[in-house]
């Protein structure tokens, strides 16, 4: 069982350090720190182009205290496949003695869209690596443009809310389900507010007998328009509204975790999606009377997907 005792973890050396250029209140370093706490084995990290990569490797500064590689935007999963292949080859020859784990960080751009091919291929080939999707629902690094992960109704710079169009018209891809369709050993959805859940999931991912994937909601103060102090609060709201349920797929079995399980079992109430929409400036146009129908559509979709998930988890 992965150690989630904060006091014990705080005694370890930091694998990811301060001095990076991520915005104040960015969820990505919070998530990365938690993931890196999920194993004490030596690790190698690959990182797709994006906020996280650029801000933590601004030459000559690096925030990484572990081996780390970035090569391009759409190929972080392919890059780590190469590292893992080399590890297998060299371990077989007795040239490497350590038991090393491999983890990839990619944003939703790199994972849902441009890098989808690479992650699908890497999973199909069965490389032993953990892929963490830092989902802030847009191509944030290039200026908050919409991605396949952007929420319906969100205003981004390539689907702005205007007088005629209320932001993004499409619902996001359910990438977690698409990845699960590859029938990999482990996949999950997580949120940085529930660090115990995230660290345990990452721990399972690191020890999975094959590829593992965790999709993590990563609220972005800049792109989603909220006060930088509220990042963790908002990630919790994503789960409490059932917009971003916490669940895992482990060796073929689906199960809810954290607040999602409590909501399913009746121990906690599902919050209305309006709470979520009110909390961020990217949805502020939806308070207008003319877009009331959009809010209804969004709630309907949350409920539909939640219902589907409940069935899969046999709740």
């Amino acid at each position, binding site marked *: 069982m992965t150690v989630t005792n904060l006091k014990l973890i705080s005694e370890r050396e930091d694998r990811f350090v301060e001095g990076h250029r991520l915005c104040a209140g960015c969820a990505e370093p919070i998530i990365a720190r938690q993931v890196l706490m999920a194993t004490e084995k030596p690790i190698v990290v690959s990182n797709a182009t994006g906020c996280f990569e650029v801000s933590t*490797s601004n*030459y000559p500064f690096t925030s990484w205290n572990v*081996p780390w590689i*970035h090569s*391009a935007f759409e190929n972080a999963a392919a890059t780590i496949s*190469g590292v893992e*292949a*080399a590890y297998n080859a060299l371990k077989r020859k007795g040239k490497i003695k350590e038991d090393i784990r491999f983890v990839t960080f990619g944003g939703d751009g790199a994972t849902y869209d441009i890098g989808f091919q690479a992650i699908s*291929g890497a999973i199909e080939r069965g490389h032993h690596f953990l892929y963490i999707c830092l989902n802030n629902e847009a191509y944030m690094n290039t200026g908050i443009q919409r991605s396949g992960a952007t929420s319906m109704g969100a205003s981004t710079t390539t689907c702005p809310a205007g007088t005629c169009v209320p932001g993004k018209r499409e619902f996001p891809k359910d990438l977690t389900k698409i990845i699960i369709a590859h029938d990999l050993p482990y996949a999950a959805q997580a949120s940085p507010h529930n660090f115990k859940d995230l660290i345990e999931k990452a721990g399972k991912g690191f020890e999975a007998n094959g590829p593992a994937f965790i999709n993590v909601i990563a609220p972005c103060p800049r792109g989603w328009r909220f006060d930088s102090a509220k990042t963790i609060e908002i990630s919790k709201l994503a789960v409490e509204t059932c917009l971003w349920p916490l669940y895992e797929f482990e060796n073929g079995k689906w199960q809810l975790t954290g607040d999602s399980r409590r909501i399913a079992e009746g121990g906690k109430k599902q919050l209305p999606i309006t709470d979520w929409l009110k909390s961020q400036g990217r949805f502020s146009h939806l308070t207008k009377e003319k877009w009331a129908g959009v809010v209804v559509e969004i709630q309907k979709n949350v409920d539909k997907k939640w219902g589907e998930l409940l069935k899969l988890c046999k709740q």
Partner: protein
Amino acid sequence: MAIIAMNGDQAIALSWRQIDPDVVAAYPITPQTIIVEQFSEFVADGLVNTEFVCAESEHSALSICIGSAASGARTATATASAGLAFMWEVLYVASAMRLPIVMAVANRALSGPINIHCDHSDSMGARDSGWIQLYGENVQEAYDNSLMAFRIAEHPEVRLPIMTCLDGFIVTHSLERFEPLPDDVVKQFVGEFKYRRSLLDVSKPVSMGPFDGTDYYYEHKYAQVEAMRRTIPVINSVAKDFAKLTGREYQLIEPYKLEDADYAVMAMGSTAGTLKETVDELRAEGKKVGSIKLRLFRPFPSAELMKMLEGLKGVAVMDRAISIGASGPLFPEVRSALYEAKHRPKLSNYIYGLGGRDVRPEELRSVYNDLMSGSGETVNYLGVRA
């Protein structure tokens, strides 16, 4: 060793079997497919220890090679045409990261229209990427270049990725006699893989592929320029070692009957072979002509080229690729190399063989006739029904 018969693809696969790289990651594309198919048979029969990764695309294939080479593993791949084009972005990254990846390129035309036959548009399109480029005329050369490529790329003064080019179908699929080296000789010639930094050296964590601002990018690129500058002496010294083993001498540029020639035609790849036939015929008629085979395209051997061509009356540069809106890609580089020569030959360009259009000795003869009669344009299109 005994002379055997194989096609170019098989010979490349053989060279890989003998070298037994740590990792091969590739995606199939005509006319390179035999390389990966043959090599995967070696894997299936346990003849190599290679971790063979069937990538889901060429962009991923080269990205996998990057991850592998960055992890202290000897890494090889192969591609052609659209596959090389798909890798284009990461070619630059592999070179910038100074990873000694060895890639065989089965020269094939770029789409469109889609065409599976030989021309040099694919590797020419990659000429700015910082990869070393060697071109082989026939199966023997394809095999020999493949062996030397590992030594060249991995040399501590160089450490750049390298592509060894062989003409698609013409060399890749033609059965030719050639003399391979024995397995143990290959192993000794290529040696153990030595790397500078590895991601798997977990006790010495490094960050590879950082973000450069305006204050560092130029210096990092310049370091690649310097590495390329150090490459020619390394290529020559590796060729010298190779000659000691095999008796086969490889130069950067190979002259044929050039000593007292007035006119010469230059080409890369298999056409250099056909040219030798044409030269022999013309010489038999008393014409003072010769030919030049360019083996090394990147780094471009300007100084050596100037020395060799200076004093000739006329040189026709044959390009099996076209930079639409300009000329062939090889031509301006040759012209530039000769700009400061005291006695510059008259230079002309012949675009030929695009999309595998066959070039016959008669057509090559017409190029010599143009040279000798002083006719022809600066840029000519040989063999097209205009």
